[in-house]
C-alpha cells in the first residue's frame, strides 16, 4: 500500500479513527506522519505519539516484516484472554498479566515509545519495601566500584559494611 499523503513511499502507519460511529482510515508513511505531527500542533488529526501507537505495535523486533504473523496471533494472555494481535490493534493491555504474557515482545515497543524498558521512579511503600532495598544495594555497589577505582579505600570499606548489612537484611526477609 502506498502512502496517502506523498503517494510515493510505502505506507507503514495505519490508523482507523471512529468519531460518532463514523469510520475513517489513514495509511501513510513515517516521514509524512512526522511532518504532519510537527507542523500542525494539536490538530484533530491526532498525529501524536499516542495515536501512532498502533503503528508502533506492529513493529517486528526481528525486522523481517509485520508482527501480525501467525505466531504473534497465537500469543494470548491466560488471565484476560487478550491475544497479542488484538493488543497490537487496539494498543491497550487487557490486564496487568498481559505484561507478563507479552513480555518477550514488549522491550522493543517500550524502547521506541519511552527510550527505555525499566522503571526507576516511585515504588509503592507498603508492597515495595524489598524493591527499594534492592535498588539501594545496586546504588551502593556502584558507589563501591567508584571508590575503589579512585583509591578511596576508607570510604570503600564503609560502603562495603553497608552492603553487608543490607544483604543480611534481605536474606533475613
Amino acid at each position: 500500500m502506498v502512502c496517502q499523503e506523498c503517494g510515493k513511499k510505502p505506507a507503514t502507519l495505519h490508523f482507523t479513527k471512529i468519531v460518532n460511529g463514523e469510520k475513517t482510515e489513514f495509511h501513510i508513511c513515517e516521514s509524512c506522519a512526522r511532518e504532519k505531527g510537527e507542523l500542525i500542533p494539536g490538530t484533530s488529526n491526532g498525529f501524536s505519539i499516542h495515536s501512532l501507537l498502533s503503528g508502533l505495535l506492529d513493529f517486528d523486533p526481528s525486522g523481517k516484516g509485520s508482527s501480525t504473523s501467525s505466531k504473534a496471533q497465537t500469543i494470548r494472555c491466560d488471565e484476560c484472554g487478550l491475544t497479542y494481535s488484538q493488543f497490537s490493534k487496539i494498543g491497550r493491555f487487557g490486564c496487568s498479566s498481559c505484561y507478563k504474557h507479552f513480555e518477550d515482545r514488549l522491550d522493543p515497543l517500550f524502547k521506541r515509545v519511552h527510550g527505555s524498558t525499566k522503571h526507576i521512579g516511585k515504588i509503592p511503600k507498603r508492597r515495595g519495601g524489598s524493591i527499594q532495598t534492592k535498588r539501594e544495594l545496586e546504588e551502593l555497589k556502584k558507589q563501591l566500584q567508584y571508590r575503589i577505582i579512585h583509591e578511596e579505600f576508607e570510604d570503600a570499606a564503609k560502603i562495603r559494611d553497608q552492603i553487608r548489612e543490607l544483604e543480611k537484611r534481605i536474606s533475613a526477609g
Partner: protein
Amino acid sequence: MEARKFTEKALSEWMRGKGPDSDIVISSRVRIARNLDNLPFPMLATNQQSKEILDRLSQVMQAAEMKEIGNFSEVFLSDMSELDKRVLVEKHLISPNLANESRNGAVIISENEAASIMINEEDHLRIQCLYPGFQLEEAWELASRIDDVFEEQVDYAFDEVRGYLTSCPTNVGTGIRASVMIHLPALVLTQQMNRLLPAITQVGLAVRGIYGEGSESIGNLFQISNQITLGQSEKEIIDNLHSVARQIIEHEKAAREKIMQESPIRIKDRIRRSLGILTHAEVMDSKEASQRLSDVRLGLDLGLIDHVSSDVLNELIVMSQTGFLQQVYGRKLNTEERDIYRAALIRDKLSKS
C-alpha cells in the same frame, strides 16, 4: 444533586488564586494512572468487576488520611445529565473519556476543585491535580500524597521492572502525565511557533490544544506535556517539562517585548479592537471569542488595558464553551443561538468588570 455544586460556577476556586508566571502559564496539571492488582483493566472488566473496582476505590475516600488532605465529594457518572458531564469536561475536572465511555465511572473532587480522582477511566484510578500558574512540583506533590493514601488501602498492579502497570503502554512506569497550559499569543503572532514545535517534540514532550489530544489549539492556548513515563523518575520528568516550559516562557516574554518595541500602535490597535468587538458584538462564534479573549488577555498582561480583571477573562474562556452556555441558559441551544447568547454573555460580563 452532588454534581451541581461543581457545575454551577465556571471558575474553580483554585483558578482565582494567582500562581507564579500567571501572565503566561494558566495552569499546571499532574495526573497519575494506577490500577488495582488482580482485576482486568476497565476496558475488559465485566460490569460486576467494574462495580467492585468502584466500591473498593470509593471506600478510600473515608480514610482518615484522605480527610487530612481535604474535603472530597464523590459523583457517579450514571447520576449525571449529559450537560453536567460536559460542563465538568469543560472545567477539566473529568476527561472526555470518563464522560463518554466509562462503565461504573465516578469522580471524587476536592472542595476547591484542585484535585479530582477519576474511577474506571482508561485505568482504574486516575488522580489529577491542577494548580494555577507555573506550579508543577506542587501539583505532583499533592497527586503523590493522594496516591500514597490509596496505596495504603488497596493493592496496586506494580511490577519491579515495568513499574506501575497501566492499560496503555504509553503510561507504564511512573504513570505520570504532567502538563502546563500556556498562553503564547506573541509567539503565534511572530510566527515562531512553527520553529519551536519540532524542538519541543524532540525532547520527549508533546504540544496539544487545550482540551487534550485531538483538539484544536484555540485562543493561542497550548498544552505541553511529557510523553515518556518509563525509565525516568517522576522528578526527572517534572524537571524536564519545567525547564522546557521555562524556556518557552522566556521566548514568549522576548516576543512580547519585541512586538511592543517594533509595532506598539499595531498591537494596541489589535487589542483595543478586540475589546471593542467583545463589548459590542451581537453574534460571536467560539473561535472568534477565543481569539479576541486571547488578545484582551495579552493587553492586560502588557498593561495596555486595566479595567478588565483576569478572573473575568478566565471565567469567559470556560463559560463561552457550548456546555456552559447551555447550562447558563438552561436548555439545549443550536449553533446560531449559541453564537448570539455567547456574545450577550461576554458583553454582560465585560461591562460589569
